């Protein structure tokens, strides 16, 4: 597991037992009437981290962000920012700023006035405000749009004004609520990298809420996966993908095949799992699974090899029939129905233009994978 970790850069305060959390949620619960939006949740976020809260709508991720910004107060538990308890501090006194999903640009103010709004509230001198606004406009490359009103801007430009406005006050923490949600796909991909550069150059702590796993994987140092107001896993993107700790996380991020079964035997790191039909697989990364446990072996489609003949020297191989296939250009996705009825997804990179081993609908096929290609999940 050591090979996994932050691929992007050597920044991992969460592995350092000495490091102090910058933002901590301590046993935070938030109820709206009968509905529990956040349930006894604890979470630590470190300084200068790019942290993503990922989950489906209604999982409580936006509520967490709003509690951090001060629009909602936790029902119980507390939130610390840089060691200070945030309870009772209104939004306008918190050293955090938020970029809203709708951007919330003031329609009656120019781009300049929007960006300078927070500085004006601080009572900053006029000349200083002008200077900072100019700096911000340059940062988001909107210098020639300073005098425009929000409705005179395109969607991407509005997004950048919202971003500039929320970082103009140099907040300790920038909160981003679905920051790219309103942009089209192409613009979204470009902007992801812009956001990452911005975070690096300003040295700010970013907390971003998103329902788009690709977005979270691309941008974040760590991801918290939320479901029904609870944290399912907090880890780096690579860990979340390669070493999910539960069936929910494995299924939530990316595509996955699950082999359900019972642990028949257990070694130091590997295990033998017997499926319902009696088929047996040998797997590594067995973790805490003990003999007799009901477990799932989760394996990603790209880690499964498909071939027309039985492969030699592989720990696990199963026979079936190609039931469906999709040619996507860069790769081909096979759906193989095993003889015990389970359908397995496998994807193969099309690294050469034509394969002599091409499989087609209803062909007999073998799937195979080495023991450590997936993880054993007990939860």
């Amino acid at each position, binding site marked *: 597991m050591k090979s996994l970790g932050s691929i992007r850069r050597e920044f991992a305060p969460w592995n350092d037992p000495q490091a102090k959390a910058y933002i901590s949620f301590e046993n935070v619960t938030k109820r709206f009437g009968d509905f529990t939006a956040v349930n006894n949740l604890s979470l630590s976020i470190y300084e200068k981290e790019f942290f993503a809260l990922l989950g489906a709508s209604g999982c409580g991720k936006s509520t967490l962000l709003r509690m951090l910004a001060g629009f909602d107060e936790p029902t119980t538990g507390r939130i610390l920012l840089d*060691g*200070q*308890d945030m309870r*009772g*501090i*209104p939004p306008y*006194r918190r050293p955090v700023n938020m970029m809203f999903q709708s951007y919330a640009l003031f329609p009656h103010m120019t781009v300049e006035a929007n960006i300078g709004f927070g500085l004006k509230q601080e009572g900053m001198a006029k000349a200083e405000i002008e200077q900072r606004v100019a700096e911000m406009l340059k940062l988001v490359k909107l210098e020639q749009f300073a005098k425009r009103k929000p409705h005179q801007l395109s969607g991407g430009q509005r997004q950048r004004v919202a971003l500039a406005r929320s970082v103009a006050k140099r907040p300790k923490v920038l909160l981003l609520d679905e920051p790219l949600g309103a942009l089209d796909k192409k613009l979204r991909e470009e902007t992801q990298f812009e956001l990452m550069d911005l975070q690096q150059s300003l040295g700010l702590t970013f907390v971003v809420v998103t329902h788009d796993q690709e977005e979270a994987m691309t941008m974040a140092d760590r991801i918290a996966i939320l479901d029904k107001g609870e944290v399912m896993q907090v880890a780096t993107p690579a860990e979340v993908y390669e070493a999910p700790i539960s069936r929910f996380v494995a299924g939530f991020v990316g595509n996955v095949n699950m082999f359900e079964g019972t642990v028949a035997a257990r070694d130091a790191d590997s295990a033998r799992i017997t499926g319902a039909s009696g088929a047996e697989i040998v797997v590594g990364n067995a973790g805490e699974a003990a003999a007799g446990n009901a477990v799932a072996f989760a394996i990603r489609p790209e880690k499964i090899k498909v071939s027309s003949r039985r492969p030699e020297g592989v720990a696990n191989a199963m026979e079936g029939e190609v039931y469906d296939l999709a040619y996507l250009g860069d790769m081909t996705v096979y759906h193989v129905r095993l003889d015990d009825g389970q359908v397995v997804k496998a994807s193969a990179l099309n690294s050469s233009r034509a394969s002599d081993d091409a499989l087609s609908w209803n062909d007999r096929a073998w799937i195979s994978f080495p023991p450590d290609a997936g993880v054993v999940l007990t939860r």
Partner: protein
Amino acid sequence: MSNVALSADEAAGSGSASRSILSRARSALLGRLVIIVPYLWLLIFFLVPFIIVFKISLSQTAIAMPPYVPALSLDDGIGGLFAQFGEMSFDNYVWLTEDALYFNAYISSIVIAGISTLLTLLVGYPIAYGMARAPSTLRPTLLMLVILPFWTSFLIRVYAWIGILKPEGLLNQFLQGIGVIDDPLLIMNTNTAIYIGIVYSYLPFMILPLYASLEKMDYSLIEAAQDLGCPPISAFWKITFPLSLPGVIAGCMLVFIPAVGEFVIPDLLGGSQTLMIGKTLWNEFFNNRDWPVSSAVAVILLLLLIVPIMIFQAAQARAQEQAR
């Protein structure tokens, strides 16, 4: 040393906390003022007057200023108040039921308002329908032309009809001029004149909700119906009209409710025989100076209007839910 730093930190923390409590208290007070000022205003100038109307409707007529003996007053203390309950009388209400004038006025108000509402619907529906079908560039202008008369004085719009409808008026001149009739039509001072006045004055109230519900209707529904073999006329009755029903109900209520209590139209266009309850109340008050009876008339007028108002509110609530 670290202890000192910690306590200083704490002090700073609690200082900002108390400041924020103060500002919260201040904004809470402002928030309360936002509620209290209009609330008090409406209590004093809307609710209390109604209680007074109700109270006076239970008191005796007197020749004085004010021309009634108060039914309830706190001058004699709580004990006196209870004594007054005994003296309170429903005489005015009894009188209203005994005198056929009032009963007829109520019935005739409702009948006149009902007929006028139907006529307004008949006149307004084709206009709203035509507007909804107009090219979308033309629609805002048409809408403005419907709203514009709203802004001109009601009294003036009613007055304008006097010159048209009276025996030697423009309508009769025109009809006699083209030879359709020999003797002038007697429209002025009849119920027909009231119908015309109400239809004319309240037409925008009918057109606007009708237009709103017709405009948002998807025309491909009609095309689908015709595609499925439904001829245009029957497509109208089976598709368009049912879908516009919320607008029809809203429009009818917006015309019917104010028409029942209308005063200016029956007074100016209707004759002396025309009975409408708004006019009766006015006469009772200004001519007969009978405040208790006019108060009783007002109370019953409100009771009459509660049912249509509730229908209207239910329809509005449903429309709002559908919009969501």
